[in-house]
């Protein structure tokens, strides 16, 4: 089973090497790709030194574009499964293994790692968000449930595992602005099986969260618009690119990856 684990990273030089080593330790057989989203620090160099493949975007494109790069690489490379986790060290590789096992067993097409073990609570023993964050989480949870008619607790989790169906969808359609939420909505609308399993998350190793109260408010507002628009998107946009760009041609042209690259 060829599996790609990718890590979107933007100026995460402090943590990225540890994350890669963590993955290598837990999953020696997977390929590790760091999607360097236009970092201005040594993220790419450290990732390469730690033994990961590096796909460097020439300028910062946002998390959505970085994640899509990972999905596109996995699809082109002929990987059967892929997973991604944050570069800041919040996501323990051991938990990624658990997510992957769900897709290996074909119990779901897309598996989300949720930091909330109890669906009813906005916090867990390991993780206590700030008030503005709790409000945002509550709002998103409510509207995403409304939009998908499926219960999600951790709508913005960046720890996921997926199979090829998801790769195909996300490499064509992935909002550059609102990666996590819209992609969930999109996957559910496309009839993919999306599952959430509780995972343990850690404090970040380095860097700082990009969320300030003002940004949070903007984030929530943007998210609501995205969800609203998403409800009226065409359901099976197989031939039409979401933003006028279709990946179809390029995907077909991409040669399958050579054998012997797993180790």
């Amino acid at each position, binding site marked *: 089973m060829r599996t790609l684990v990718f890590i979107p990273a933007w100026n995460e030089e402090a943590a990225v090497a540890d994350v890669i080593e963590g993955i290598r330790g837990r999953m020696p057989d997977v390929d590790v790709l760091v999607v360097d989203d236009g970092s201005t620090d040594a993220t790419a160099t450290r990732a390469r030194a730690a033994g990961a493949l*590096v*796909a*460097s975007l*020439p300028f910062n*494109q946002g998390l959505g574009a970085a994640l899509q790069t990972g999905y596109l*690489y996995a699809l082109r490379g002929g990987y059967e499964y892929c997973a991604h986790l944050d570069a800041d060290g919040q996501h323990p590789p051991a938990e990624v293994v658990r997510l992957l096992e769900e897709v290996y067993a074909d119990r779901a097409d897309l598996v989300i790692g949720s930091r909330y073990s109890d669906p009813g609570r906005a916090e867990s023993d390991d993780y206590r968000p700030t008030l503005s964050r709790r409000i945002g989480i509550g709002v998103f949870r409510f509207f995403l449930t409304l939009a998908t008619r499926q219960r999600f607790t951790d709508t913005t989790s960046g720890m996921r595992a997926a199979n090829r169906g998801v790769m195909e969808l996300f490499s064509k359609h992935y909002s550059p602005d609102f990666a996590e939420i819209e992609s969930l909505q999109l996957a559910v609308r496309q009839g993919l099986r999306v599952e959430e399993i509780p995972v343990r998350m850690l404090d970040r190793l380095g860097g700082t969260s990009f969320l300030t109260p003002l940004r949070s408010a903007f984030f929530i507002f943007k998210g609501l618009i995205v969800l609203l628009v998403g409800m009226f998107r065409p359901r099976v946009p197989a031939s039409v690119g979401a*933003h006028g*760009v279709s990946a179809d041609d390029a995907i077909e042209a991409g040669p399958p990856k050579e054998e*012997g690259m797993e180790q």
Partner: protein
Amino acid sequence: MSNLLLGAQEPTVQLTSQTRIIAAVLAVVFMLMILELIRQDRLQERYSIVWFVAGLSMLVGAAFPGLLSVIADALGVRDTNVALFSMVLLFLLALALNFSVIMSRQAAQITRLAQERAIEAARKQAAQESNGKRGSSTVAGDTAQRDES
């Protein structure tokens, strides 16, 4: 004073000849500017059409003020100038929206281009590692992306 209150009986406000002359001159200057921009390759033809239409409309409006009065009547506006302003405003609004659409498309194209380039480099690195230093992936790749000549 009673004139102001009984607005309905007020005569329609027309464009003055002075306004018309200024508008005509501006329209001509404007279109010459567009031509010059195209000549210098600073404006693509496909984006110039809409501006030519705007310049021509301006010229037509200046030459035949009767047209404007008809439109103003149809809109229920007594002042031709107000009708003119409203139309120009709507036109600019539509144009701004059009630009946002074009911008979004180009942003998506730029993103895809950046992704293609990044993926290409990573594939190259992967190929080099599997060819050159099989099994010792930790050493390889330090310069893999830089020396793609």
